């Protein structure tokens, strides 16, 4: 918080809510400790194995990394172009479908008709087992798919920008937001038109793909490991790009203060182009990885994921790339560990509730105030 008088007043006004949330969080922690110890005191406590907590945390970490990866692009477009991009979730789906089409093409080439492969099993009757895409069986195909997802989604994001958003650069955020809802509809339903509407399995099952860590009771899947490595790799690359390159510096400048950046002669349109390429590409990659994690694909999964991505971005503070990653991790862990207390019907609702609380208590986010790009 700042040091001016008004912000102190604001902080004081926000405090009762903050206090309540802190108390609630503390209570949950105490309850968690009691559950782990197997003690029950009144409504608190119960029993919970460390193994379950561990696997909840691990699953949350994996989902969180994917959401954070998608959130980077959303956060960047939000800060540099000043609008909430509702078509971001559908870019996530674009990456998944195009990436898996190519991964299938490589994995199942020769035995299975190309139209079945490229349409991610919409046409034809081959099962995912026939195609056999799996990181252990066909690592090359899975990696190539990831690259394709990045590249194709980046191009589509750029095309959407040129067609829809560029003519609206000087308009207010809400107008562009509405246009982005239109873009989202176009992309999502073109995907449905081209790839069909049914949910289907994608990855094949391979024996011995689970690596168990016995002491913690954790079971780590080879796909989860792939996701962690790929997501962390992309995030580190992003970090170096932002901190070490001229483009990254320009992006951070644009995000911090657009007018000042323009005055200093930063080529705004070029930075915007780069933003779409990187943000869109990361969204596509995260969609591809999300399907690798879940094993199934459906035309609107990215849209359904969008609110979680927004939650991550808001949690971390809009405009902050590192905030988006941290927010993604928090949302992912809330998503999986909330099932300890509430029925699994509500884990998504819990993540949204965390987002809403954050917006109400600290709208600038966890890392608010420091715009790191």
């Amino acid at each position, binding site marked *: 918080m700042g040091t001016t008088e008004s912000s102190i007043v604001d902080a004081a006004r926000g405090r009762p*809510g903050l206090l309540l949330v802190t108390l609630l969080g503390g209570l949950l922690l105490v309850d968690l400790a009691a559950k782990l110890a197997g003690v029950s005191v009144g409504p608190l406590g119960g029993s919970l194995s460390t193994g379950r907590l561990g696997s909840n945390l691990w699953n949350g970490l994996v989902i969180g990394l994917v959401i954070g990866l998608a959130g980077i692009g959303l956060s960047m477009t939000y800060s540099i172009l000043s*609008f*909430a991009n509702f078509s971001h979730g559908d870019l996530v789906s674009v990456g998944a479908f195009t990436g898996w089409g190519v991964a299938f093409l490589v994995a199942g080439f020769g035995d299975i008709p190309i*139209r*079945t492969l*490229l*349409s991610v099993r*919409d*046409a*034809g009757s081959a099962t995912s087992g026939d195609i056999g895409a799996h990181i252990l069986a066909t690592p090359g195909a899975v990696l190539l798919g990831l690259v394709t997802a990045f590249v194709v989604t980046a191009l589509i994001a750029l095309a959407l920008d040129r067609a*829809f958003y560029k*003519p*609206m650069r000087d*308009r207010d*955020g*809400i*107008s*562009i*937001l*509405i*246009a982005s*809802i*239109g*873009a*989202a*509809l*176009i*992309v*999502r*339903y*073109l995907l*449905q*038109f*081209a*790839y*069909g*509407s049914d949910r289907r399995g994608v990855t094949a099952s391979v024996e011995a793909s689970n690596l168990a860590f016995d002491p913690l009771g954790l079971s780590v899947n080879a796909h989860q490991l792939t996701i962690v490595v790929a997501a962390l790799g992309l995030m580190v690359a992003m970090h170096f790009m932002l901190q070490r390159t001229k483009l990254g510096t320009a992006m951070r400048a644009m995000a911090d203060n657009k007018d000042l950046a323009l005055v200093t002669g930063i080529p705004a349109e070029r930075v915007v182009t780069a933003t779409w390429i990187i943000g869109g590409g990361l969204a596509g990659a995260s969609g591809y990885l999300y399907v690798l994690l879940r094993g199934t694909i459906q035309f609107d999964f990215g849209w359904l994921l969008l*609110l979680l991505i*927004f*939650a991550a971005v*808001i949690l971390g503070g809009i405009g902050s790339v590192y905030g988006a990653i941290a927010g993604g991790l928090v949302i992912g862990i809330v998503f999986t560990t909330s099932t300890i207390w509430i*029925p699994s*019907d*509500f884990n*998504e*609702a819990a993540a*949204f*509730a965390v*987002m*809403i609380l954050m*917006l*109400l208590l600290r*709208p600038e986010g966890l890392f608010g105030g420091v715009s790191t790009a």
Partner: protein
Amino acid sequence: MSGDGSDPNGPGSTPDSATGALLDAARRSDLGLVLGTLLVIYLAATLLTFTNGLNSVVGLLRTLTFLGLVYALAALALNLQWGYAGLFNIGVAGFMALGVYTMGIVVRSPDPAFGPPGFGLPLPVGIVAGMLVAAVVGLLAALPALRLKADYLAIVTLGISEIIRLFLQSSSFDNFLRGTLGVGTGGGRGMGMPQNPVRELFLVDGQAGTPTAFGELVFGALGDGGLGISNSILIGWGYVAVLAAFVIGFYVLLERLGRSPFGRTLKAIREDELVADSLGKNVNLIKIKVFVIGCALMGLAGILWFGSQGNVSPTPQFMPLLTFYVFIAVIIGGSGSNTGAVLGGIVFAAVLFEGPRRVGSALRDVIDAETPSSFADALVSLDPVSLLAYATDNIAPLQFVLLGFVLVFIMHRRPDGLLGDRIETAAAVDLSERPHGGETDE
């Protein structure tokens, strides 16, 4: 349109009653505009289906009018929040779900033959309760959320609408309600709606085959005894008349609200919050009020819409897509204009929502080719006819693509909607022309 100067009394003259407001609207040709649009839509629909006989024409017209009116209701409620006060609420679906579910829970019998139990109270109580719950949740959402920037408010309301849907979907919540209050939501299977009173107007206890005196008269003249229109369609038209009355009610309410000092403050807030604040208006209180009123109206719109459909279920009926439909209706009409909202609702329902499906299926009947099982198959066949067969058989996704393009196009070219040239009277009197002068409405 308010800009046409043919009005002898001056556009600023105040309606002194509901009928006065209606006449006023008609004189300024707004009503004429709406009726004209309806007429064009009716003509097109008749042309599309007249070969199938009178019954299907009247049935299609009923469907189109029903959809047009329910969208108009929802669009009017949203217009109050967004058009008047600039509150970007994209949780419309959630508030409609709250209204209709509360109504269902309150009215359903305590031990029904099937489905979740309810409180078994009369229908009017249920409707009021539905509006109240929507309003209270709106209040809870608004109290803190209105401090946020417009796009944050959008995300928060979308989140709230999804939370509402997830709760209604959840079987745990259903069981919890059954355990504590003895009522239920039905979870993912949904809930049967109470009998529509309009049906009882035509049929004794709503049972088919036992018409009331009024039903006898109508069925005799237009139904089996006369023109041969099926009874269910005639009852449907009866409900359409009720909806039309509600649309008029909403319209008059919002028009009067918009012209009141309160409404002018709203528009001032939308245009420049800082100025309104500096002039001593309690901006936050006014925003909360308008948000709550809008949410109550959305609850009512949800009741009138989905409460008449026999069965409601949280998915897919109350997905955020529903909110975007309503938004498109408002945007087509131009946000801020009540006539625009009604017109947008009607145009959206007929031209964008129902139209493509009908045209698609009509085209499909003409095409003599087997539908390929997937887009890839259609492409591989290299046959434009089979591609067209696939497209017309899968018209639903293409319809959404069309909706998307319409949204983008309107935002690019006509951000003020179809009635974009409308001069909005934010002032009590129309400042662009003042033929008699000196009139005030305070």
